[in-house]
């Protein structure tokens, strides 16, 4: 069986994105990092004033992934952007991965050390908030 893997290593904005890329590579799921930019609001002159670039696109599955592992204020902002994206581009499938989803994934894979590192870097609270 052949797996289509991404060979380039982009500069990820967050450690969690790099970790998710490693997970996708591990399971042979092809991905692209921030491949598309979707305009979501325009000014009166028709100029784009706000866009949304989901973190990952999985071409074989046809879905975008957006990771949200940062502050709650940013989560609200991303939720708002995602609502606009879904209204403007209903054919685009986007899955939002919240911090709790990512934490649960790391627990499932026994990557508690990774969570501890990220929490230390971010100054976040305990591992489990649910």
């Amino acid at each position, binding site marked *: 069986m052949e797996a289509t893997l991404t060979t380039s290593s982009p500069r990820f904005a967050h450690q969690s994105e790099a970790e998710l890329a490693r997970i996708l590579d*591990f399971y042979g799921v092809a991905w692209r990092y921030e491949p598309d930019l979707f305009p979501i609001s325009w000014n009166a002159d028709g100029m784009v004033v706000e866009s949304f670039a989901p973190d990952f696109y999985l071409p074989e599955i046809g879905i975008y992934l957006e990771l949200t592992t940062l502050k709650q204020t940013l989560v609200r902002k991303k939720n708002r952007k995602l609502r606009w994206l879904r209204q403007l581009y209903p054919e685009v499938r986007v899955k939002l991965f919240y911090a709790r989803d990512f934490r649960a994934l790391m627990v499932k894979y026994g990557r508690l050390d990774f969570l501890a590192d990220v929490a230390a870097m971010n100054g976040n609270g305990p591992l489990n908030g649910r």
Partner: protein
Amino acid sequence: MIHADVEEVLLSGDEVQARVAELGAQLAADYDGRDPVLVSVLKGSIIFLADLVRAMPIPLSIDLMEVSSYGSSTESSGQVRILKDLSTPIEGREVIVVEDIIDTGLTLNYLLRYLHDKGPASIRICCLLDKPARRLAPIEIDYRGFTIADRFVIGYGLDYAERYRNLPYIGVLRPSVYSAVAPD
């Protein structure tokens, strides 16, 4: 008696057994005369498989596979590997993949591609627990025991750090069990 590390019993042993019996009866009806092979993935699925096949009074065979999981990989950039392959060819056979739980779907997505390359007549999926909240790879489930919320579940074959598989029910693991081993 409920284990001290269990926060809540999600599905009692009786509920699990009743649903497994229903699934077995449905599979037996659908596959009567088709001599299916039930392929299960070690280790979590073995208890479900054992009960399921005993609820299927038709000719069938079973096979077991084991694949490496991401967390158990000691390499920083490894790839999933088949740790135990099928014992017999499945070319032309009617395959039922038996899974304990489908979460992200990544392992099963890999496994299905692998099995399709072996040329079976058909592949259908039977899972006891469907946890769709974090699904990354789309999986079409043909036989589903229960759909559950996004909780960390153990028991009836499901583990945390290789423990709790022998619980006769499906329970929610107390978060303190795994948060205790990770520093704040």
